[in-house]
């Protein structure tokens, strides 16, 4: 089981390596490069577009949702605060209204009575500093409080006129005669009989500050009150000094309802401003928050979203690259393997049909050849044995040359039959060294005679072959013989054997002879291809060798360089399976 997994891994691994440098890219296989680029692009588009759309949508909708939620929160808070502030003034105005309804002018005119009223109001509502009663002409006829203001003339003052007109009045914060920020609320009472008067109360600012303080806003937020001219009425921290013009925030437009707007603020730090015009007063309530603070939730979410998006991008790009590359690399490898297999098959089929043709020709020629041989032999016999034919010496020479030619033809047909013959493989076990020694036995004499250096380099521990010894002898005899013919006297022939992998050995025969041209190299295994036709070569040696090597389940390769020499390499399986006769030609 684990061996199987190992096999699978082994088949996969080289392709993973090829991801880095895909072979179709290296080979410049255009069609594959095109498909590869197209599939990467398509995959990337198909996966990135929806992702981008989705992330954009989520981004925008989340931002909006959080923004809206914050706007609502500010609205709610502002609105509640407005109600509190409004009721603060209303309560006190109502207290004054109640007082003027219940108590008569003549009663209130007396300061000791007024002091009693102030005491009750302070007890009931608080935040009231003093009380004053002003008659219709604007003279303060009665006063109770920490200052001595009886008899003061308010007729010229704005608030007195407004109170007279409107019946009730809430003033801005102002310093007044006493130099302390304060504000006044006043109500007018009139019975239509010239007994009109105004009851005025001064409120200290602590009351409002307390309300605003009770909101418990964070460090960077603030709630304060301005009047309709933009003058700050309660401490605003950073948006301007008390009783001065508000800075950094534009005057909010009038609205009956609570509103929220966004503004640039100072130093490009956007602000969210909630505001409300407080009815029956000159006040505008402001609630200012820094946008960066209230959008804090959003920033966390946004960061997660961006990390998710970037992470996905990396993964998608990786997948978009790896999958098409892996698949197209596999496809390419498969196609190449197939092309090689087809090529080999074609080669084998071509050689096989040539073999059949050759065998047919050989058979048909052999019989007439035998007849020519005997007839010519007979003529020669006549000349040799019978006196009457001996007269002409030329005749014998002619016959000899006929017989010689017949002999050559015979050699060709014999080899042709050998080429076509597909006798079965019979295996035995023997060391590689032994086969080569068998072959060299035939050639040692020639080697020493021609002074050819034979170098044998057989790897130590080379496993013994399980193969057909006779065929191997023939293969190496052919190859070494060729090498002998290629080298000049005093040349050199190297024979090397080593393992290729656990299942194959390679035996190479190299010479430093004349070499073979590129053009001839391609035809070298074709039957009848010979460069030494003149000297009696049949051109069958290498095609027979090729057939034999294939028969043993091996491969033969040739490399050559003109003038430098030639190397034939035979790669053989260490164990050849015994094969029966498949030959179509026998008889």
């Amino acid at each position: 089981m684990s061996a199987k997994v190992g096999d699978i891994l082994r088949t996969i691994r080289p392709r993973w390596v090829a991801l880095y440098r895909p072979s179709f890219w290296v080979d410049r296989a255009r069609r594959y490069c095109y498909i590869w680029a197209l599939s990467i692009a398509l995959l990337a588009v198909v996966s990135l577009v929806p992702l981008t759309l989705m992330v954009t949508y989520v981004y925008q909708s989340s931002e909006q949702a959080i923004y809206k939620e914050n706007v609502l929160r500010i609205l709610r808070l502002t609105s509640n605060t407005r109600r509190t502030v409004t009721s603060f003034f209303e309560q006190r105005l109502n207290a004054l209204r109640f007082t003027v309804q219940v108590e008569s002018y003549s009663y209130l005119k007396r300061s000791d009575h007024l002091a009693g009223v102030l005491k009750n109001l302070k007890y009931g509502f608080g935040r009231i500093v003093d009380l004053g009663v002003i008659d219709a002409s604007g003279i303060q006829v009665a006063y109770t409080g920490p200052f001595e203001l009886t008899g003061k003339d308010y007729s010229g003052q704005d608030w007195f006129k407004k109170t007279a007109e409107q019946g009730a009045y809430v003033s801005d914060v102002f310093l007044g005669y006493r130099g302390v920020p304060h504000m006044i609320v006043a109500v007018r009472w009139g019975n239509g009989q010239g007994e009109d008067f105004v009851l005025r109360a001064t409120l200290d600012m602590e009351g409002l500050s307390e309300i605003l303080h009770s909101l418990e806003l964070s460090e960077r937020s603030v709630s304060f009150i301005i009047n309709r001219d933009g003058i700050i009425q309660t401490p605003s921290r950073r948006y301007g000094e008390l009783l001065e013009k508000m800075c950094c925030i534009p005057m909010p437009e009038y609205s009956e309802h609570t509103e929220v707007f966004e503004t640039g603020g100072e130093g490009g730090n956007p602000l969210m401003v909630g505001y409300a015009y407080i009815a029956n007063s000159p006040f505008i309530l402001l609630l200012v928050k820094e946008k960066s603070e209230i959008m804090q939730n959003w920033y966390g979410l946004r960061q997660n979203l961006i990390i998710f998006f970037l992470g996905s991008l990396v993964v998608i790009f990786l997948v978009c690259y790896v999958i098409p590359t892996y698949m197209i690399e596999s496809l390419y490898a498969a196609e190449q393997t197939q092309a090689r297999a087809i090529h080999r098959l074609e080669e084998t089929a071509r050689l096989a049909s040539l073999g059949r043709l050759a065998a047919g020709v050989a058979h048909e020629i052999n019989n007439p050849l035998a007849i020519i041989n005997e007839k010519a032999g007979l003529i020669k016999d006549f000349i040799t044995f019978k006196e009457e034919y001996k007269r002409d010496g030329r005749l014998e020479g002619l016959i000899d040359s006929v017989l010689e030619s017949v002999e050559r033809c015979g050699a060709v047909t014999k080899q042709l039959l050998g080429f076509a013959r597909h006798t079965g493989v019979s295996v035995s076990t023997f060391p590689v060294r032994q086969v080569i020694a068998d072959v060299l036995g035939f050639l040692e004499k020639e080697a020493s005679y021609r002074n050819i250096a034979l170098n044998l380099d057989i790897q130590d521990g080379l496993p013994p072959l399980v193969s057909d010894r006779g065929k191997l002898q023939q293969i190496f005899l052919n190859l070494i013989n060729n090498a002998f013919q290629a080298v000049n006297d005093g040349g050199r022939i190297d024979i090397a054997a080593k393992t290729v992998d656990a299942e194959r050995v390679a035996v190479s025969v190299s010479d430093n002879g004349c070499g073979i041209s590129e053009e001839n190299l391609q035809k070298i295994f074709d039957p009848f291809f010979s460069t030494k036709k003149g000297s009696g070569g049949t051109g069958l040696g290498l095609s027979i060798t090729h057939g034999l090597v294939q028969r043993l389940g091996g491969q033969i390769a040739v490399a050559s360089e003109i003038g430098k020499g030639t190397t034939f390499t035979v790669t053989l399986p260490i164990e050849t399976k015994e094969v029966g006769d498949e030959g179509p030609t026998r008889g």
Partner: protein
Amino acid sequence: MRVLLVDDEWQFVEALAERLQLRGFDALVAYDGPSALELLGQGGVGLVVLDLRMPDMDGLEVLRRIKESWPKTQVIIATGHGDEEDRRQCLELGAFAFLSKPLNIKELSGLLKEAWEMVA
């Protein structure tokens, strides 16, 4: 030394017979297996030169029958298209030698002489 030459190529056997005659052999010819067996049946033939591929009865069959009926008779196979397998089979059946066509007359007559010594 009486030699029977068996081959369907009559031109071949005729010429060969004459050549062997010149070399002192007493040569007979047959163009097919059955007539060869018939001639052998008449007696007096100790050596046979036999082709393998012939119509009607092939050389292997003729060889088998010769060796059955006249085990002492020596047979030399001369064929135009024999392979290793044929050689092995013929030698197993008791052939004296296995030669390929075209023949070398010296080789053939030498072998015939050797074979004759076994017969005689």
